[in-house]
């Protein structure tokens, strides 16, 4: 996929999700939170397929195989953490009687943001690109 297609696909999913989110928060619709998050589920699943496809391609490619596979595995884990975080948020919002602690719900986000911060920082230091 060209970068334009990927960008527009991401943009469209985000737009639909934000519209549904606003409608739900303003009580214009009373849908289940798992339905409101459908654009995100769709996006994450396509992302997983895209990463898996890249992983297969990098397995075939003998040049810098180990680095490339390590990178795609990290991306796969990041998407799975994002998925689990979204499921926890939906559960917290939908099942109020469960009283899930916010710490448990937001813990995947801490891991994700902290890992991305380290990754971007290493990139910043390694290539000295500001």
């Amino acid at each position, binding site marked *: 996929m060209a970068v334009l297609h990927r*960008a527009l696909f991401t*943009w469209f999913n985000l737009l639909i999700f934000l519209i549904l989110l606003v409608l739900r928060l*303003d009580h214009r619709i009373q849908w289940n939170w798992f339905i409101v998050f459908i654009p995100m589920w769709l996006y994450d699943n396509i992302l997983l397929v895209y990463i898996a496809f890249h992983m297969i391609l990098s397995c075939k490619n003998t040049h810098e195989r180990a680095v490339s596979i390590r990178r795609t595995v990290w991306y796969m884990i990041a998407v799975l953490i994002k998925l689990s975080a979204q499921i926890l948020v939906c559960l917290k919002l939908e099942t109020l009687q469960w009283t899930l602690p916010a710490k448990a719900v937001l813990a995947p986000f801490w891991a994700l943001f902290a890992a991305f911060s380290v990754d971007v920082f290493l990139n910043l230091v390694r290539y000295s690109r500001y």
Partner: protein
Amino acid sequence: MIFSLNELVSWLGLTVFEIWINLVSLTIFTILLALKLDEIYFVESSGWWIVFSPLFIADALNTYFCAIIFIRMHMEGMMKVGILRTLWSMVTLLLLFVFKYLLCKKLAGPSNLDYSEVLSPVFILLQLIAIRACQLH
């Protein structure tokens, strides 16, 4: 992931340093948010401003960084590119700041604003980002 860091930089018009600042501030924000939601700290309604403070600090740092880049570009004679870059950064920062401010105000106390009004800066920003996406090669 779906985008490389270079693609993100050229699409969003942010530098790697700005992305890093935003990520660090988001990490701190989510930790403070969990403490607030579990009612461990910042129990009073004004506590929302403390929870949102990392995001406001990140905005201030990014504004300072953009100002420095503009001054350096001006000194190197890249006036037109510098103005366009600073304009885009300032519009992005302003829209995101307004969104965070309105959200914090809504959460902190009685507010007549709907969430559709609170998120309106984000929707404007999304339109601008869509235009930038069409310029990608």
